[in-house]
């Protein structure tokens, strides 16, 4: 049983969940299901693996296709055995019926051609008929990783493999004025120096040789300063001063308007955030005449190919793009960029495969970042302090500049060539797929009226694209912080205050479950605090509520996160918990530590020292409750926790100290500065 999904493994365990679905529908042991990596030569085009949609999209497609295949085999078996298909049952591929009659998928395989389009006409099993869905099966990829067997693109041995490195400037969008290649040419094993405008790279027989040649080339390079970056300290206000496309996201008028007595207004900000995958981006490419084959950890092999068609000026059928695993992927990182780098370098050495690996510094400074956001929220309160109006405005760059979506390429090297393509300015996905800057900006609460608007920048000195949750992280932080402020002013419990404004049952259920599990609200000791945050991701996806327990002493420490989540039917419950736990810990890192640093010429946070992330000793305990709804279609879990956890921590810090921090990250220095002001 070979299943070739268009979605890819990015460290989230999706391949196992999809295999589970296929095995369930076909009635075979999951060990018989062989999952094939996505490739433009063989897999369906399922776009990009993002947005926590893989189980929804690919899972549904596999479910329907497998249900149909099972029925095709049942019909053939019925004909062979001379019985009605309805009396037959399938058990691990063996088809049997009354009176010990039997055949099997394998016996019938030669008679049946599956080379046909699926019709989606055969209804899949109901959730009650499935045996594997809902079980926490062990992930298929884990044994390789535990024994150090080659699994990642970085580990893949190709015969005759050459090694490539790219010379990228520290200065943002700098121009290469002069390049002395003399010393690099003397490096043992050097095969080629490739230069096209500002794009420069080396190809070498060995990896140390490639590093040595790159170092030599760097010494011989003379760069002219490129674009000026904004003042980091002023970035929240800078975003509001830039040219922008303004859009009204939602406007709801009150059925029976109530006069406002006063208005409360607050401004929140999140910085640029780096992907910071533990593996630097990597790709391999090999030319064969006018064909090129590319191995990539891109989230979308077809989308990447579309951009390569534009840059390489080749017909799409001459470019094969195949997926290979890399380290955890949290959005549009350098994977697509390095694939073009590899194609450009490999072109200089026809017939031989070239692997290009980015440096840590390039990974932290040249890959796109999650966009910085400034968010203003206003509430109109009536004479009794109840919310009668709500306004929410967002300023920032768009949250996606993915390949394959526009009529110009989104790949870094394309902007560096002698005949360059312009840098793609990030846009926002449409509201129908959850929006971008505006994601989760429309309240889930029962306010009588609201007005939401978004100001997307049309300049982009700092490159941004999709990072886990897009704008939902910033918006949920703002909305849930602001609600907490309003509840506090009224002297109301923040859980009760939320429930009082929330009629949606599934929303109430996760908040109540998280509060109950965390024994809300525990008596607090000195320096400790508790906070809650809630959202339904994209307003259409997973429901999640988080309670944070923090301790503020010498430093700010998140001791415990308690979460309740509702993803509808949980195909692999342990996989869901793993995603929620991971999201909660990553969000804790974003809130307490992360901020891309820059001066006016370059990104300065280009190492783990300059861009620290949460360490083992700083990781909170995470306790997750799944509210199981097997009768409801599954939604993804990968991005549900970030917003609620961020808000819960910010609210807990306020609960501990009575000081409200509205700029992320929430650090000791900022806390001290805020306490001095208050």
């Amino acid at each position, binding site marked *: 049983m070979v299943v070739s999904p268009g979605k890819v493994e990015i460290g989230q365990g999706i391949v196992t969940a999809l295999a589970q679905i296929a095995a369930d529908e076909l009635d075979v042991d999951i060990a018989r299901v062989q999952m094939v990596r996505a490739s433009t030569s063989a897999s369906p085009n399922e776009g990009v693996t993002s947005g926590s949609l893989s189980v929804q999209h690919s899972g549904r497609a596999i479910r329907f296709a497998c249900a149909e295949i099972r029925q095709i085999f049942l019909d053939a078996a019925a004909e062979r055995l001379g019985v009605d298909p309805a009396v037959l049952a399938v058990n691990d591929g063996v088809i049997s019926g009354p009176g010990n009659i039997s055949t099997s998928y394998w016996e019938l395989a030669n008679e049946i051609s599956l080379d046909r389009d699926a019709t989606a006409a055969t209804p899949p099993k109901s959730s009650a008929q499935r045996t594997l869905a809902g079980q926490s099966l*062990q992930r298929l*990829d884990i044994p390789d990783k535990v*024994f150090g067997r*080659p699994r*990642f693109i970085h580990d893949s041995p190709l015969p005759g493999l050459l090694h490539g490195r790219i010379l990228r400037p520290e200065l943002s969008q700098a121009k290469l004025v002069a390049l002395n290649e003399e010393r690099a040419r003397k490096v043992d094993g050097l095969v080629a120096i490739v230069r096209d405008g500002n794009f420069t790279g080396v190809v070498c027989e060995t990896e140390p040789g490639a590093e040595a040649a790159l170092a030599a080339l760097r010494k011989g390079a003379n760069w002219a300063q490129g674009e000026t970056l904004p003042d980091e300290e002023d970035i929240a206000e800078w975003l509001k001063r830039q040219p922008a496309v303004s859009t009204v996201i939602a406007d709801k008028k009150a059925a029976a308007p109530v006069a406002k007595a006063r208005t409360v207004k607050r401004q929140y900000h999140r910085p640029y955030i780096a992907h910071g995958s533990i*593996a630097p981006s990597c790709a391999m490419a090999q030319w064969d005449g006018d064909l090129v084959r590319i191995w990539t950890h891109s989230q979308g092999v077809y989308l990447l190919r579309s951009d390569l068609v534009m840059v390489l000026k080749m017909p799409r059928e001459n470019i094969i793009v195949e997926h290979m695993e890399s*380290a955890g992927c949290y959005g549009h990182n350098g994977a697509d960029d390095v694939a073009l780098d590899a194609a450009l370098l490999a072109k200089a050495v026809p017939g031989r495969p070239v692997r290009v690996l980015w440096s840590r510094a390039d990974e932290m400074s040249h890959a796109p970042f999650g966009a910085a956001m400034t968010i203003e929220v206003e509430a109109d309160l009536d004479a009794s302090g109840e919310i009668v109006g709500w306004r929410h405005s967002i300023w920032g760059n768009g949250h996606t500049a993915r390949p394959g979506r526009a009529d110009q390429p989104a790949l870094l090297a394309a902007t560096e060539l002698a005949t360059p393509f312009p840098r793609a300015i990030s846009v926002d996905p449409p509201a129908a797929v959850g929006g971008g800057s505006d994601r989760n900006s429309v309240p889930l609460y029962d306010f009588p009226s609201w007005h939401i608007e978004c100001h997307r920048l049309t300049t982009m000195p700092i490159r941004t694209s999709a990072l886990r949750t897009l704008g939902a992280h910033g918006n949920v932080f703002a909305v849930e912080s602001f609600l907490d402020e309003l509840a506090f002013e009224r002297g109301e419990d923040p859980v009760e205050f939320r429930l009082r404004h929330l009629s949606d049952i599934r929303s109430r259920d996760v908040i109540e479950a998280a509060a109950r599990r965390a024994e809300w609200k525990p008596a607090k000791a000195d320096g400790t605090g508790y906070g809650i945050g809630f959202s339904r991701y994209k307003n259409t996806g997973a429901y999640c509520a988080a309670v944070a327990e923090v301790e503020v002493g010498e430093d700010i420490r998140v001791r415990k996160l308690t979460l309740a989540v509702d993803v509808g039917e949980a195909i692999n419950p342990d996989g869901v918990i793993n995603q929620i736990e991971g999201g909660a810990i*990553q969000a804790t890192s974003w809130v307490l530590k992360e901020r891309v640093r820059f001066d006016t010429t370059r990104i300065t946070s280009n190492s783990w020292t300059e861009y620290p992330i949460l360490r083992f*000793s700083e990781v909170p305990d995470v306790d997750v409750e799944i509210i199981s709804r097997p009768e409801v279609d599954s939604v993804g879990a990968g991005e549900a926790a970030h917003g609620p956890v961020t808000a819960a921590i910010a609210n807990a810090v306020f609960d501990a100290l009575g000081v409200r921090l509205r700029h992320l990250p929430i650090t000791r220095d900022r806390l001290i500065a805020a306490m001095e002001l208050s």
Partner: protein
Amino acid sequence: MTIRFRLNGVDTDIEADPDTPLLTVLRGHLGLTGPHFGCGAGECGACNVLIGDHAVTSCDTPLWSIADKDITTIEGLGSVERPHALQRAFIAEQALQCGYCLSGIMMSAAALLKRNSNPTSTEIKAALDRNLCRCGSHNRMVRAILRAAAEMRAS
């Protein structure tokens, strides 16, 4: 020049520039895929191996410094046929998401268990504090190490 060391119990001679990073030798000359390159500056621990009983970042360890020493990588920790307790425990706890940082983390854990057969969660976290994980699998990994330690004590 030739540098001799023991790799996963086998005498190994390498002819290379003595300043070559150990990771380059392991992945390049010796073709191992367990230790991973993450930063090249000893900051993330994805390349951790054991030198003697200590977990060390191999990306910034020069070859000359390991002459005559015992090097253990994840490949030497155990195999599918004879898995180490840590490998069994990481599978049982499904203690990873992407797994790129994993071999380095398991080597740090192996070093800890050599010096402390009954570590607390806090001691495990302290021992892993120089290993970065970006997916947020920390707590599962701590649970896996506690499980492995218990199994090793029982046997």
